[in-house]
């Protein structure tokens, strides 16, 4: 079963390539200047006088500015720099070190929280507003590695294994994934009574929004975006049959079952920690794909196996918004997911359930990395709010205490921002897949051999190098 207008073949069987239409959706709320550029005014005045004599009052030469981005192109030049144009190139400091200062602005430095760095916030804003892959010159500028996904590098192919030219669209790379239980084997003697799997064109869906952040405009934006992309939108407390909810993935509780009458949702999530709810849902919704939603913990692997045996079609594991599980040690979602995936593989149950991972998926690279760790697809949460220019009012780590507050938005604008974001994340996923020579994101699932971990490489490559005393 395929979903959305982006399906690969329409009803007549005609081939359509999946395409997500990005359009500019500029910021509607002002964003902080990244850099704070300032001149010491007395020295600037003295310099102008000096240069006036040096260049014999040739106005064009004296007033030529040391900036190609127009920071000093305003009426008052260096006396009132146009700060938002500064890109931190430092040429003004190179030319006039005695009077120019360029630094990251305080507002920029305070942006986000302990997980959302200012750079990450800017990246998501940029992606949501332009729909273009962030491209920059020079090399990587950040730390050597970090925690969780930052400890992992993805592989690439070279000479001895074919790569794919998917970046510029010359070879087709599929980013579609299936949700639901897959048959263990083909048996022509029996009728398969399991619900069919659901195919979506990207391995990214929208998770329910954090508590207290849901509002009608944000909901409408997400709904529209999900429909345009052909993906799913998880929500609670939404009445079945309401218009504009075709791409809804509802979270159903026991009390909500009755609302459906004789109908069945195509797919639904439920609280997997509620005893017997799965049994009731399986009995009532025998044609629905049922996804158990639960917090990611130490015992998630064995819980996953148990639920798979009971007949669940998928599991949605939620880490906290900073990408840590709810175990005593607070493991990163990448580690916890590997455990769950590998336990399901060992028990021969992996294809019986689809795994959705959420919590801490905030950058494009987190999607392939989560999939390498064992997820089939991811759900994004706080990233949606950041793309919609929500306001950081403190730490948003715990799912019950969100300090990332949505602002008033136009739903059409919001939808386009989310379409842009998912479109550009898909493009970047294709870059990663093409570098690895893969033509299908489904093949990446759990393929940890196509990743390299800092801790492992360090021990292999620096073996024999003693610690400094």
């Amino acid at each position, binding site marked *: 079963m395929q979903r959305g207008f982006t399906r690969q073949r329409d009803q007549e069987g005609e081939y359509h390539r999946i395409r997500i239409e990005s359009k500019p959706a500029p910021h509607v709320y002002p964003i902080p200047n990244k850099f704070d550029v300032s001149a010491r005014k007395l020295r600037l005045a003295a310099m102008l006088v000096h240069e006036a004599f040096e*260049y014999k009052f040739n106005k*064009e*030469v004296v007033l*030529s500015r*040391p900036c*190609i*981005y127009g920071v000093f192109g305003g009426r008052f030049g260096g006396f009132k720099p146009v700060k938002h144009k500064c890109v*931190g*190139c430092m*040429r003004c*400091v*190179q*030319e*006039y*070190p005695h009077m120019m*200062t*360029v*630094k990251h602005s305080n507002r920029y430095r305070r942006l986000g929280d302990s997980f959302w760095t200012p750079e990450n916030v800017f*990246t998501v804003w940029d992606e949501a507003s332009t729909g273009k*892959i*962030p*491209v*920059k*010159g*020079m*090399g*990587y*500028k950040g*730390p*050597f*590695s970090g925690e969780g996904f930052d400890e992992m*590098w*993805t*592989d*690439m*192919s*070279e*000479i*001895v294994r*074919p*790569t794919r*030219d998917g*970046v*510029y669209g010359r070879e087709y790379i599929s980013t579609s994934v299936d949700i639901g239980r897959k048959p263990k084997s083909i048996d022509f003697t029996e009728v398969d009574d399991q619900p069919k799997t659901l195919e979506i064109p990207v391995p990214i869906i929208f998770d329910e929004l954090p508590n207290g952040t849901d509002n009608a405009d944000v909901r409408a934006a997400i709904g529209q975006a999900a429909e345009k992309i052909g993906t799913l939108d998880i929500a609670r407390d939404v009445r079945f049959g309401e218009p504009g909810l075709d791409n809804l993935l509802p979270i159903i509780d026991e009390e909500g079952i009755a609302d459906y009458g004789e109908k069945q949702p195509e797919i639904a999530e439920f609280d997997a920690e509620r005893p017997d709810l799965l049994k009731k849902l399986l009995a009532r919704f025998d044609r629905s794909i049922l996804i158990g939603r639960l917090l990611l913990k130490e015992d998630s692997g064995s819980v996953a196996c148990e639920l798979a045996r009971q007949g669940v079609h998928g599991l949605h594991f939620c880490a906290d918004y900073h990408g840590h599980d709810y175990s005593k040690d607070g493991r990163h979602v990448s580690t916890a997911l590997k455990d769950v995936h590998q336990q399901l593989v060992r028990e021969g149950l992996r294809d019986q359930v689809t795994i959705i991972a959420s919590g801490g998926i905030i950058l*494009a*690279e987190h999607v392939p*990395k989560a999939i390498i760790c064992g997820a089939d697809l991811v759900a994004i949460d706080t990233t949606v709010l950041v793309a919609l220019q929500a306001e950081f009012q403190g730490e948003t780590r715990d799912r019950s205490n969100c300090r990332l507050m949505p602002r008033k938005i136009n739903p059409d604008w919001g939808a386009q921002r989310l379409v842009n974001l998912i479109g550009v994340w898909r493009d*970047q996923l294709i*870059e*990663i897949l*093409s*570098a690895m020579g893969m033509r299908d994101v489904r093949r990446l699932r759990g393929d940890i051999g196509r990743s390299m971990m800092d801790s492992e490489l*360090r021990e*292999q*490559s*620096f073996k024999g*190098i*003693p*610690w*400094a005393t």
Partner: protein
Amino acid sequence: MGNLELIVEKHTERIHHGLDVLPTLKHGVPEGLGNKRWTGELILATYEQALTGDVPENGLEYKTGNSGGGFDVLGWKTHDDVAKVDEESIDLSIGLNKRPDGKKIEIPLPIYGGGMSFGSISLNFMIARARAAKRLRTYTSTGEGGYPDQIVPYRDHVITQVATGMFGVREETIQYAPIVEFKYAQGAKPGLGGHLLADKVTSEVAKMRESSMFTSLYSPFPFHSVYSVEDHKKHVDWIKTVNPRALVSVKVSTPTDVDMVAIGSYYAGANIIHIDGGYGGTGAAPEIAKKNIAMPIEYAIPKVHDYLVSEGVRDKITLMASGGIRTADDVAKAIALGADGCVVGTAEAVAVGCTHCGNCERGRGCQVGITTTDPELSQFIDPDWGERRIVNLFNAWSKRLRMILASFGLETIRDLRGRKDLLVRFK
């Protein structure tokens, strides 16, 4: 002199003056300068070395960055009982052809310049690099953008790069070259090919690349003529047929099986295997690629070195490393990890004023005339001045390399290769 000339002269003087003044720390380390890999101090220390040709003595950190890993957490063991060696007599030369056949090429320092294409960098900077290579008796590489006439006089010190877009690859440019470099991949964008943004494709660049002006140019990935080591051998044979005296270098990125790629290249007939780590430079690359694809060079070097040793061919192929080599200490650490030498690009750009700000791909390009094709901005780099600074930088690096070798009583840089036992790790 017209106003435009005066304006260019004014800003050229100011920039050059600033590069001289900033490392004195009279105004401190500018707050917004640098990042974790290229810290503000490291950038200023590079300016200082490019100015003086000496190791900085004013307390500027010139050895490592602040990335928290790789070269930045490696240091040198301290030794008390080493034989005294005269620093001046220490030999920094390495051979680039270890095979019994073919021309023997030796460079007097274990460094040559990495590929930077015409189009991604200005012609003046390209000439400066070529002149510096000639003066240092080493090499620089054309990158993928063709072979401008202006660097033909330095052709004995210019490596011709053959990459997937084949821009500017002609019979004569292969015949010019003492070394021909196949670029299979680039560390900063492994597996993704090249991309020259439309703004930089001026009439000169378009002519050189035989394309249309102000149209983005893509180099595909991979070479669609190479899907196996056997195909790769055909490539090597092609070059050796066109120019039998040329050495062949194979530039690859650092996937998990980089060791297999290296041995394959050896058996295909390459003289040099050049591995380019993920944290290397570029004129423009997707941010996701720079940070996430392929392993850093610090991990790839021992992997390749050890494998070549175990296969018994280590002394038959030269292993060059690049992709995040910022300092003389990085060069020495790379060699101690198993490389023969290093290929350097970004450090040369920093020597002539780069701030590692990463705006190379924007509009007119680099504000100080390095990664730009803008006719006005390009003039900030006078080739003579650029040559002098690059030569000074590598002279300073040579002094530092000699200091390191002398501290261990080693008489040649070749003795440092694979000496991991001389390194220590910091937490």
